[in-house]
């Protein structure tokens, strides 16, 4: 479904990604793990067109994402729930959700999608008229995920969805990811919470200083000596 072929990405003159290649099949949950600064978010931002690769290609359902304007990517059915949530703080919860469904196809089913998001996250319904900036961290994350779902995506990119949340909420985030997969949506997730991520992921790639150094199924990597030492502290 998604194919990343040998991308090199730079911030100015500084190279951040070296020849990164991986793929995500339809219906899979794939994780990208690695330490701070390994290039995980950069990879997602490149897929979403916010950054352009200097070399290599990004293909989604046969379309070259690195060659179309970034605002058109969501139309193809690829939603991105960005790092640090990136809500519109001065807009209400409901307006934030509406922003997820701007494109004609999603807009036509906006009311229906709103109902679905509200029934999954009842807290958001209670707070629909409140400004997004005044929500708690957990609620903001749910809103960011809800906003991503409003576009009726076929695939979602999650960037550190559990970052800064209390353990109970982290649990809830992973439950949501599981629900989304069950609805047939493909997931690519970037996380620092390696143990829980590998537990839900079908496959995972390990990113180290901008290069993919390992890949395997979730359980394979959980058992991998190196991974355990580097990321699980055992």
């Amino acid at each position: 479904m998604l194919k990343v072929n040998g991308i090199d990405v730079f911030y100015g003159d500084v190279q951040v990604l070296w020849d990164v290649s991986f793929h995500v099949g339809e219906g899979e949950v794939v994780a990208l793990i690695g330490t701070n600064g390994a290039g995980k978010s950069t990879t997602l931002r490149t897929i979403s067109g916010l950054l352009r690769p200097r070399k290599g290609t990004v293909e989604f359902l046969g379309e070259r994402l690195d060659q179309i304007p970034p605002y058109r990517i969501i139309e193809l059915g690829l939603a991105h729930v960005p790092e640090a949530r990136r809500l519109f703080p001065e807009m209400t919860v409901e307006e934030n959700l509406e922003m997820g469904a701007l494109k004609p196809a999603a807009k036509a089913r906006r009311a229906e999608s709103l109902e679905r998001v509200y029934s999954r996250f009842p807290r958001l319904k209670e707070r629909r008229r409140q400004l997004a900036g005044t929500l708690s961290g957990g609620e903001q994350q749910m809103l960011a995920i809800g906003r991503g779902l409003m576009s009726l995506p076929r695939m979602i990119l999650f960037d550190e969805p559990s970052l800064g949340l209390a353990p109970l909420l982290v649990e809830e985030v992973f439950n949501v990811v599981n629900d989304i997969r069950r609805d047939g949506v493909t997931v690519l997730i970037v996380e620092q919470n390696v143990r829980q991520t590998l537990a839900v992921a079908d496959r995972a790639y390990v990113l180290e200083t901008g290069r993919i150094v390992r890949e395997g199924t979730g359980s394979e990597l959980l058992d991998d000596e190196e991974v355990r030492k580097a990321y699980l502290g055992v």
Partner: protein
Amino acid sequence: MVQLEVFLQTLVSGLLLGGLYALIGLGMTLIMGVMKIINLAHGELMMVAMYIAFWLFHLLGMDPYVTLLVTVPALFVLGVFIQKTLISPVLKVDSILPENQVILTVGIGMVLQNLATLFFTSDYRSTPVDYASDAWYLSDWWRSSPIELSFSVPWVVSFGFAVAITAALWWFLQRTDAGKAIRATAQDKDAAILMGVNVERMTVVTFGLGAALVGAAGSLFIPMYYLYPALGGRFTLIAFVITILGGLGSTQGAIIGGLILGVFESMTATYVGMGWAPVGRFLVFVACLIFLPGGVAGLMRRR
């Protein structure tokens, strides 16, 4: 009683002026919100609109208020043109700092002012409409009123148009998808792109809108003010003060900021002296920077 009358009369004039100021401030604020640069050609754009209105009045005998139908779309197109051909290419260059990108707008302002001088000379112009000095009086409606207030016809009509345009803008920004996309772009550009907003087009539309708003203000001011090429600078300054007063980029703040500035100037003119109004303007500006750096919007957020 006389003192109360003077006070209320001053307040009324201040609010009428403030409503028009709000319109000028709103345009600059919108542009500031989306592009993060202060448009220092803002007053000059208004001057252009005033010349359009003046010539339409002079050559075709069009009423200044009817010229809104021309100045608003014309300034929208001019704004889009300026954004597309001049500002956008400069904004794209990362190595030019935003504070330097602002200088471009100063240059645009200078060019507009000098073109106006070149083509129209620096003569003072006005549109002598026959209702220029008409007024409505409080006693017209309330016979036994203990005090008397007058409402200048052109000021009230201009104020009414300003309120209607502001309300229309408000509705556009709050209720339509395009308006929401503009607000989203102002709040988080990358997130807006991820939602499928064509941020570049929004930027162009926003500059056009900002220019159209100040263009409307031009048509609304011309029945009362003399027009000359250098008039723009003063209004750029006013718009700048309102934008700071409102809290950079907040539309609500800009409306309140405009009203505050109008009332303050009017009060200064009455109680200190006609010539002191600009001093009052700077006083508000400096006081705001010192005591309320977040502007009105900061105050509203703190609640």
